[in-house]
């Protein structure tokens, strides 16, 4: 019943969102991500097939992610409240196996009245490298980097809290952000973003993030508004991290008229320490099934995006996750993606993944449509 009410509310708002925009209504947009996916596995090693039966109680973990699904429907509102505050709300409806979850992804206010500072309060995605604060329809690839999934699970690092951002008066763009949120546990994040214009058309960005679990909660929090099935029966596949470090470097080039561009991002993540409590968050990718949480983990991921013609993108990504002793590569993943963006409002993306976990290779092919309705989407940099 509760779900039905929420769905009706959701659809009503969608209907409102698609009405004629007026000068006072908030900007409202609706993003629809549909995903078709098929995975293949090399003949599993003996070790793996034994594991299969032993872990049958893991429920959703062994459910195939193959097939067609609604990756996410996101409804997004944004508006200045007055000359002092601006508000931001997004609701996400996502399919997890056979059921749908409606989530309040973000609901926060930002200050507009303090020179060089932005205060934020509410529920939001924290900064962590290049990826965590992106909404799913802005992801450079269909799925987030593996290390993000491994550390933060399906919903990313997101919670209720507060944040202070400070733009320094240095001659280049240099911003420092302190954030604290309550999600599963109390977390604190320190984020430093630096960006230099190399030429009129190219930039270099260096981001440093330090995240820490400030206080463990005995009963982890969950923010799912509505859930048909109880998602808490996911077993722990998420790292129970204590300290995290992220260093990311991005080089970007764009011609003057949005016909050709290139992006190269490299991210180094290091996780240190482990918490005692179990996590309840479901992981996103199919690749994480056989991964054990580790005490320490390190990851390197690097991707490159080429806008070949105005409407075509070719991309590649390589990711490795190392074990706690820094010796063995626990997981490697290679992805290529071809996207056709007919306009700013639609994209059709085809992604091919090769994943090696321990000694076994698996492969996945995914086709995603990314549609946006309503308010004009922002050209993120």
């Amino acid at each position: 019943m509760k779900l039905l009410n929420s769905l009706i509310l959701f659809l009503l708002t969608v209907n409102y969102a698609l009405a004629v925009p007026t000068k006072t209504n908030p900007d409202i947009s609706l993003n629809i991500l549909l995903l078709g996916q098929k995975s293949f596995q090399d003949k599993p090693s003996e070790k793996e097939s034994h594991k299969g039966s032993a872990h049958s109680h893991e429920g959703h973990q062994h459910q195939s992610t193959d097939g067609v699904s609604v990756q996410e429907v996101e409804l997004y509102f944004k508006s200045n409240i007055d000359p002092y505050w601006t508000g931001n709300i997004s609701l996400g409806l996502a399919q997890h196996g056979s059921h749908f979850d409606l989530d309040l992804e973000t609901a926060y206010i930002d200050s507009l009245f303090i020179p060089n500072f932005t205060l934020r309060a509410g529920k939001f995605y924290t900064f962590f490298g290049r990826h965590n604060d992106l909404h799913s329809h802005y992801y450079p690839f269909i799925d987030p980097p593996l290390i993000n999934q491994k550390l933060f699970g399906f919903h990313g690092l997101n919670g209720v809290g507060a944040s202070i951002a400070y733009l320094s008066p240095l001659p280049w763009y240099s911003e420092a952000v302190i954030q604290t949120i309550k999600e599963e546990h109390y977390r604190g994040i320190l984020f430093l973003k630096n960006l230099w214009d190399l030429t009129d058309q190219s930039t270099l960005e260096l981001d440093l993030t330090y995240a820490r679990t400030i206080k463990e909660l005995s009963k982890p929090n969950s923010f799912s508004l509505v859930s048909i099935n109880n998602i808490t029966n996911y077993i722990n596949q998420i790292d129970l991290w204590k300290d995290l470090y992220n260093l990311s470097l991005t080089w970007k080039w764009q011609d003057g008229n949005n016909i050709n561009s290139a992006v190269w991002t490299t991210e180094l993540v290091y996780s240190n320490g482990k918490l005692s409590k179990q996590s309840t968050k479901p992981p996103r990718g199919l690749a994480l099934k056989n991964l054990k949480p580790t005490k320490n983990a390190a990851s390197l991921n690097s991707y490159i995006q080429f806008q070949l013609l105005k409407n075509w993108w070719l991309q590649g990504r390589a990711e490795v996750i190392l074990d706690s002793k820094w010796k063995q590569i626990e997981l490697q993943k290679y992805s290529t993606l071809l996207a056709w963006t007919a306009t700013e409002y639609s994209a059709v993306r085809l992604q091919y993944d090769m994943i090696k976990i321990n000694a076994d290779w698996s492969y996945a092919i995914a086709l995603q449509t990314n549609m946006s309705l309503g308010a004009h989407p922002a050209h993120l940099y």
Partner: protein
Amino acid sequence: MLKNILLSLALLVTVAVSYSDSHSKKPSDSTPKKKLYILTSTNTLRSLSQEIAGALLKIESLTKGKQDPHYLSAKPSYMLKANKADLLIINGLDLEVGWLPNIIAGSKNPKIQKGKQGYLDTSDFITALSVPTTKVDRFFGDIHPFGNPHFLLDPIRAIQAVKAISNKLAELDPNNKTQYIKNQEMFEKKLLKKTTEWEQRIKKSGVKKIVSYHSSFEYFLDRFDLKLTGLIEEKPGIPPSSKHILHIVKKIKQEQSFCVLTASWYQTKWAKKLKQMANILVQPTAIEVGAVETATNYILLIEGIVQSIESCKAK
């Protein structure tokens, strides 16, 4: 560990705040006041503001003249410029909707937020054309839902925008008010005189109909009593299909409307097709100040469009 980081960050913030304070509080009675810094979204607005301000103010544009102002990225370095601006002048009517809101939000500058004294939307001072009266839908392309934003190509509407700019400059910098008003009046007089001359020249050219790529020329055509035969782009923001090009060539021949104008930044694949199919020559024309070398100011920008029309006749 965390404590140390928080402490050092607090220190950094304190140092930076006192640094920026010491800079902003510098001007005293004896030293001359720092020039106001004006940021415009387009280069045409920069040029128009320059006509009013002369050397009294520092004026910069986010869009370079050769860039299509529909498409820009919200580069953090633009946020840095916006952070220092005393006034932000925008075109409005959603021309900059894809990129400017992020720059304003990222500027962390309370002065230039929408509705504040340092925010000027010039479209508030003109009457827009092609305002949709029914529900808008992107099946019809990337239409501007509040009306066509390309009003600055009409010299009379440009005069209205310039008046709004000069009033705003006078409000923010009352010491130079008389100079701004004088400059505005001079510019208006000069532009009115030129507009009469352009009217006569267009009439003399005999050109009555225009084909254009995007609806960039709607206000210009309206002002100079020219008709639009058709648009090359299939729908706003959607490049033409071969079928659509065939259709437009047919229409050009039917209506004997051989004057084809296009903004200098649009792709010219289709222009070659027009040349091959019907020997129709396309005139790439600046629609922003600085888009071509000769369009160094607003009057030369409109002069360039008028010359393109005159050269249509010459062929």
